[in-house]
């Protein structure tokens, strides 16, 4: 069993109520603003529910003269881009996040846009062991000055919980917890493991998960959890930890043993967080440890015990009480939150959509898991709200977005993936998400008094995603991208493209790049001729008609050099951003640089709804309990308007000033 040490919960309340010393000569600003961010909350859907009288607290929020309007989202309308735009008050040219995925212009390798692992420091090698000196952390790639930094400079205390694209935490708020973009212990964005005693089940890797065998013999099943590479070994080798399940031969129940932890669970039951300890280096003489063990935590779900034993193990998460990964500022803040309301998923986007897409969890099981993750975030909110006295509190809820991705299309009978039997029972799930948001808004209204400003907002809306467009296949079919060998299966721009005859390629969900001489490693397009080429491709894309629907597939194509601000990070982004028509989205493999056989396909994935479309078709929401001093029509305006409530100017901070 995990041991408990008492970190006084009082510490948090002292931190939360202590005023911050005023820095600089400027007069301290005052005010109280709470911002609730519901990722993916759709304006139209919310308004429909309000009209049906199902969201009384949203009505209560605006009834005294408050605002309730759509919020223009970012281009492209993807969460890391949108939240970075909110954070900095600038478009991607000012914060440097253009998509989930960027590419290295030299090698075209794709990478996550928001954070990057740093190189480990120098190593000292002793035999087969190595000791790494420093380095090896993570770097936040989002640029620009976050709005809370400007508030802090004016003496306003700020608490920023789970702002996306803020890992590692910026360190400029009084308290921060990172969210979307925070890796799991493997350094991935969530890798579950599914174990089965079925000997015919193939051991394999899925998107975001692994399938592994369980050795079952006379009621005892043994499996192995795989951790990250052992940092102490010169030769790369994975850390592992065995576990055992003792299966009862009468009832559907088993005892799980992982290290020192034992847990009896029924089939269909999820465990709380269980420690998973990896031994990095055996102690000298079995007693003296030279290196601390790596302790992760996981939730286990015993799916069934008969006829085969099946066990789902969540991604291995960093323990917020241990501080092995910088997920909060100050560092002990995460542990204080865990002390108050229990340990929680520290990885970003914890709802395990990949386990549902991989047909490992059923829709019902996915909803159980998503509920666990959502409730952790909710359980943390009330204590944080209770301790809030003044300044700014931003609190993020990501559950609505990820559950909507998987469940929204259960309301769309014409969706290619819709089957009544599989999805019919979940038609009401999205509605329940909005009811939850309404309840949270109600709890907040009950807790605050009349002088506080409450803002409820989202980064983008939602739409059913029926049709898929592969930009790389389109570029190939239109003569802009040439393969070395047209017959090769699953070609990728990394290995299979003839760059001497390729003028453009796609990376990311909405990005299109010109193969520019002097920028791309094997660039051929003369920079002087780029503008004309961009315009030519733009016109052709806008003329695209989906042969199945007979409607336009693309309603906007943004030319970044012309349509974006001339910020300092414009050069790292794509040359064009595609705004797909509502209902169409960029193809997933194409987003990683693969070239699909067909341009158009039906979306038969369980991930049946999305928002990576024409930004005007998926606006977010902006509600507040009072009119703000500054006008807000789009996400980019919002932070300056929040600062306005504190009567603070000077935002956004011009790039290069931070």
């Amino acid at each position, binding site marked *: *069993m995990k041991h*408990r040490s008492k970190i006084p919960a009082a510490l948090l309340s002292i931190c939360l109520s202590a005023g911050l010393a005023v820095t600089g000569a400027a007069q301290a600003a005052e005010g109280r603003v709470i911002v609730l961010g519901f990722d993916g909350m759709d304006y139209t859907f919310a308004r429909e529910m309000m009209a049906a009288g199902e969201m009384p607290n949203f009505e209560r929020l605006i009834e005294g003269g408050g605002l309730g309007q759509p919020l223009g989202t970012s281009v492209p309308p993807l969460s890391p881009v949108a939240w970075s735009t909110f954070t900095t008050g600038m478009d991607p040219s000012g914060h440097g996040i253009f998509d989930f995925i960027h590419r290295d212009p030299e090698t075209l390798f794709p990478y996550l846009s928001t954070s990057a692992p740093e190189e480990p420091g120098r190593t000292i090698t002793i035999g087969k062991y190595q000791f790494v000196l420093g380095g090896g952390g993570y770097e936040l790639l989002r640029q620009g000055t976050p709005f809370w930094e400007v508030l802090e400079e004016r003496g306003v205390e700020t608490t920023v919980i789970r702002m996306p694209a803020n890992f590692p935490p910026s360190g400029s708020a009084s308290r921060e917890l990172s969210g979307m973009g925070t890796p799991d212990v493997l350094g991935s964005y969530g890798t579950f493991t599914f174990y089965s005693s079925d000997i015919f089940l193939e051991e394999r890797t899925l998107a975001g998960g692994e399938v592994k065998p369980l050795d079952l013999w006379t*009621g005892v099943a043994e499996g192995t959890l795989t951790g990250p590479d052992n940092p102490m070994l010169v030769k790369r080798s994975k850390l592992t930890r065995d576990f055992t399940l*003792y299966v*009862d031969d009468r009832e559907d*129940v088993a005892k799980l043993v992982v290290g020192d932890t034992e847990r*009896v*669970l029924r089939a269909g039951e999820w465990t709380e967080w269980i420690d998973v300890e990896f031994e990095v280096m055996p102690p000298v003489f079995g007693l003296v440890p030279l290196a601390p063990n790596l302790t992760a935590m996981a939730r286990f779900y015993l799916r069934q015990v008969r006829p085969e034993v099946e066990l789902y193990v969540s991604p291995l998460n960093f323990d917020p009480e241990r501080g092995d990964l910088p997920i909060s500022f100050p560092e002990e803040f995460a542990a204080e939150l865990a002390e108050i309301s229990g340990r929680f998923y520290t990885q970003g986007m914890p709802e395990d959509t990949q386990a549902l897409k991989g047909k490992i969890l059923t829709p019902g099981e996915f909803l159980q898991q998503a509920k666990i993750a959502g409730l952790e975030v909710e359980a943390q909110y009330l204590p944080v709200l209770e301790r809030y006295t003044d300044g700014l509190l931003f609190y993020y809820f990501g559950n609505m977005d990820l559950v909507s991705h998987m469940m929204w299309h259960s309301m769309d009978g014409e969706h290619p993936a819709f089957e009544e039997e599989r999805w019919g029972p979940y038609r009401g799930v999205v509605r329940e998400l909005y009811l939850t948001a309404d309840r949270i808004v109600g709890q907040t209204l009950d807790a605050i008094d009349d002088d506080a400003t409450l803002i409820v907002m989202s980064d983008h809306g939602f739409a059913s995603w029926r049709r898929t467009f592969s930009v790389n296949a389109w570029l190939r079919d239109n003569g802009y991208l040439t393969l070395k060998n047209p017959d090769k299966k699953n070609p990728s721009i990394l290995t299979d493209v003839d760059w001497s005859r390729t003028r453009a390629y796609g990376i990311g969900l909405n990005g299109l790049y010109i193969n520019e001489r002097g920028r791309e490693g094997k660039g051929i397009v003369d920079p002087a001729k780029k503008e004309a080429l961009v315009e030519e491709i733009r016109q052709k894309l806008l003329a695209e008609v989906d042969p199945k629907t007979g409607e336009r597939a693309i309603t906007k194509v943004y030319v970044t050099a012309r349509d974006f601000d001339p910020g300092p990070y414009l050069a790292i982004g794509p040359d064009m951003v595609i705004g797909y028509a509502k209902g169409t989205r960029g193809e997933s493999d194409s987003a990683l640089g693969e070239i699909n056989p067909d341009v158009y396909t039906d979306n038969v994935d369980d991930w049946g709804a999305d928002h990576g479309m024409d930004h005007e078709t998926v606006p977010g929401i902006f509600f507040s309990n009072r009119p703000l001093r500054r006008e807000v029509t789009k996400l980019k305006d919002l932070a300056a308007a929040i600062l306005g409530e504190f009567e603070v100017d000077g935002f956004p901070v011009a790039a290069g000033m931070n």
Partner: protein
Amino acid sequence: MSAINAALRPFFDLLLYPLREAPAIVGVTLFSLLFGIVALWLVKLTSNPAKVDAAKRKVAAGLLEIRLFNDNLRIIFRAVGSILRHQAAYTGHLLVPLALMILVFLPMLAQLEFHWGRQGLAAGDSVVFKVVLEEGWESRLPTDGGEGTPRPDLALEVPDGLSLASPPVWSPAEREMAWQMQADAEGAYEVGVRLGDTTHVKTVGVTDSIRRVSPERLAASFTNQLLYPAEPSLPRDSGIEKIGLTYPTRDVWFFGWHTHWIIVVLILSIVFALILRGPMGVTI
């Protein structure tokens, strides 16, 4: 040993009763002071101060010799020999009090471990409660006659305040029956383990104050009673090896450092002994 423990348990419960709501470090400090005084008193009672002092002075003389004649190898070797000899003599003089200390302190430390080393369950906690049978139980204990592998006729009687969150898992290889047990409310409980016609009890403590909690009730044996004195042994012929559950471990705060209480006692009692040896007139 069982009789001694039967007397020590209520004694320590009573002794620690006033400290149950205070941080563990308070009791740990008081006991360290007591241990320091008792240790000094044992030394005073059983060692010869003149001989101890003489041995100490001889060791000091040897060290001085090395410093003064550090260029003369022969003298250094002789001095080292003398130091080792007298150090051994010094240790020898204190051997009796040391042996007495172990005899007196060990049962006390074993008792205290179950007050300070663990904490009770918290209301809402869920733990595995298990009964492990002795080898060869099949020939001695009744089976329940159900389907599957033979299993003992074993059931739990759970009082209000605790509840079972799962049916039992029977693991023949481990000879173990395990349940998930939920602590619903604070209290000191006795769970009945009914095996055939006999019922044994096991204590379960759900409390946030410092109380004696017993992780395991074990089969009768001298070492079991020496090391796990928090609960009486099981009857000799019960056929049960142990009945147990896991309590969270407790760390003691010591100047910003969280550690096992026994380390703190060790440090503090040495400090107290060094401070008090003058006033108590003890040579160590």
